[in-house]
């Protein structure tokens, strides 16, 4: 088939080929390749250089896990370890809380009848996506300062919960919209109370959406830099703020090793989320 695409003057007898011809545009394939190259080249180069044995960070000196050893046992290991633990605690808590809130909201928004203020509520749930991160960061910082709230892990957690809600909400509500309400009706028809209908039918069917919502919220929290940077107290670091601080001193190879680790975590989580949602669709 690619041969036909390359040479549109050739063939064109078969229907399929004719359709392909209409769809085809010269150069789009090359631009796509360029696009993927741009997206992935910096990440792949950083991954490769994180295994560089050389002290100089750009000259290749052979394969080594030296920098990973540095990450776990080097001078800065303790700092990054604390930051990682902080990040994980916050991400897990923020993801759990925001997923619960988003699930409740999705149930009401998707399954509830129209009510006054429904579109306003929809706007409210998506507000954290619309307000630029830097504005959210400033507003939250001022808010905590005005009410005299101690800045630390808790303030970071609270801020994260807010902007994780829409990310958790998206896949959960999408999943819920895909579940025909006829299943709930069948449940009610077969003597299940509303509570039982939720527990025995709707919830099991929603699980893929809830899991991918949880994972996305987790990644979003784990990755956040701007808001965290504003609302964290002095001396409290998460992994992104610690990395940012270190990068300000210059890019050292251990940063590349940490980045590679974080990249891997993100890719694994996104893959899991992707597989879960695909499993959900197949059922």
């Amino acid at each position, binding site marked *: 088939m690619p041969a036909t695409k390359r040479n549109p003057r050739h063939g064109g007898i078969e229907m399929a080929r004719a359709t392909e011809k209409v769809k085809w545009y010269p150069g789009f394939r090359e631009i796509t390749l360029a696009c993927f190259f741009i997206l992935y080249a910096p990440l792949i180069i950083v991954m490769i250089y994180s295994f560089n044995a050389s002290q100089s960070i750009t000259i290749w000196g052979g394969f080594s896990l030296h920098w990973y050893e540095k990450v776990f046992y080097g001078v800065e290991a303790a700092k990054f370890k604390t930051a990682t633990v902080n990040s994980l605690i916050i991400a897990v808590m923020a993801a759990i809380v925001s997923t619960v809130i988003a699930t409740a909201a999705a149930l009401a928004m998707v399954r509830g009848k129209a009510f006054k203020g429904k579109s306003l509520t929809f706007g409210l749930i998506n507000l954290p996506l619309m307000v630029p991160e830097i504005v959210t960061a400033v507003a939250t910082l001022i808010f905590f300062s005005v009410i005299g709230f101690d800045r630390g892990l808790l303030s970071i957690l609270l801020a994260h919960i807010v902007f994780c809600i829409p990310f958790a909400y998206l896949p959960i509500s999408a999943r819920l919209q895909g579940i025909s309400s006829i299943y709930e009706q*069948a449940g009610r*028809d077969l003597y299940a109370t509303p509570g039982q209908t939720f527990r025995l*039918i709707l919830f099991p069917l929603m699980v893929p959406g809830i899991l991918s919502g949880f994972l996305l919220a987790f990644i979003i929290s784990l990755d956040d830099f701007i808001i965290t940077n504003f609302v964290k107290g002095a001396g409290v670091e998460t992994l992104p703020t610690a990395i940012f601080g270190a990068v300000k001193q210059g890019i050292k190879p251990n940063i590349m090793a940490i980045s590679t680790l974080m990249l891997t975590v993100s890719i694994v989580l996104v893959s899991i989320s992707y597989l879960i949602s695909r499993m959900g669709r197949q059922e």
Partner: protein
Amino acid sequence: MTKIALHIDHIVKVYPHRHHPVTALKEVSFDIHDNEFFTLLGPSGCGKTTLLRIIAGFEEITAGQVRLYGDDISTLAPHQRPVNTVFQQYALFPHLTVADNVAFGLKRLGQSADEVKARTAAMLDLIQMTEYGQRKPHELSGGQQQRVALARALAPAPKVLLLDEPLSALDLKLRQAMREELKAIQKQTGITFVFVTHDQEEALAMSDRIAVMSNGEVQQIGSPQDIYNNPRNHFVANFIGEANILDVTAEPMRGGKCRVKLANGTAIPLEIDHAIDAAKPLSIMIRPEHLSIKPVGKKPPKSALIGTVQDLSYLGTDTQLHVRVDDRISLLARVQNDTSVEGALKPGQSVQIDMNLNAIRMLDH
């Protein structure tokens, strides 16, 4: 006196849209008998599904009452009604096995594990799917899913089983086989079935009684024969089978008879069992198979209806033809293909049309 299973009492359903509220049911009232295969038949939008959902408890009633064996169930939630539904798209729970689907209602009713197991097995046996108990719904064919949906709804032994166009998703062969199976299961279980369909053939084949609905009203209730042979009005005559409907004027004669005149003046002596208001516009109905067509003989009787064959369509067992009498009267007729007449008819030919007088019906407007 037959026992009444469901009493539909002056039910009104209005969907309150902001600008133009939609009335789905206008004061519908009728009874469904115990142990009856009852069908709600009508085109889409006639209110039949709304009525079914009201009986099941999925829709609130604007006014009126649903009584189940005498008890008012109008305000009960779906799970409190001893009524089960076979949904159009089956609605088998995709995360549960076939057996768990069938057992679902039994468990909610608080039956013991042994009872549930025995009843589930019996139900799977009834639909001849014992060996499929551990499959998931998506591993079954459409026909199998249909039967599981039926077993699931029958398992709790509901007082009334509601079926919402359950055969519409099946292909023709399977649909015909399922008709017989459904009817057999209804007789076997003795449960009252309320069946919703827009397929008149399905309704005629399966039902004890049919309610023909349109525009949120019941047009006629009766046995399949009754509905087909004695349609009460235009809508029923047109919706069930094919019909020739002709405007007439009537004049009463002695002995309960009256004479009606077609628009072209042809008179037809007709026996009528109810009073006729001759001042009102009237019409008569006759089915195509009750017209007999033959080429015009040498000397047609004066009173005979003469027309011209417009076109013929070959339909296998018979041939359908349009016969034009004049500008106002055009008739649809059917001729069996084993008769000698069939080969003799051609477009453009003059034919004599004889009506089977016993099959002519007066229609209300």
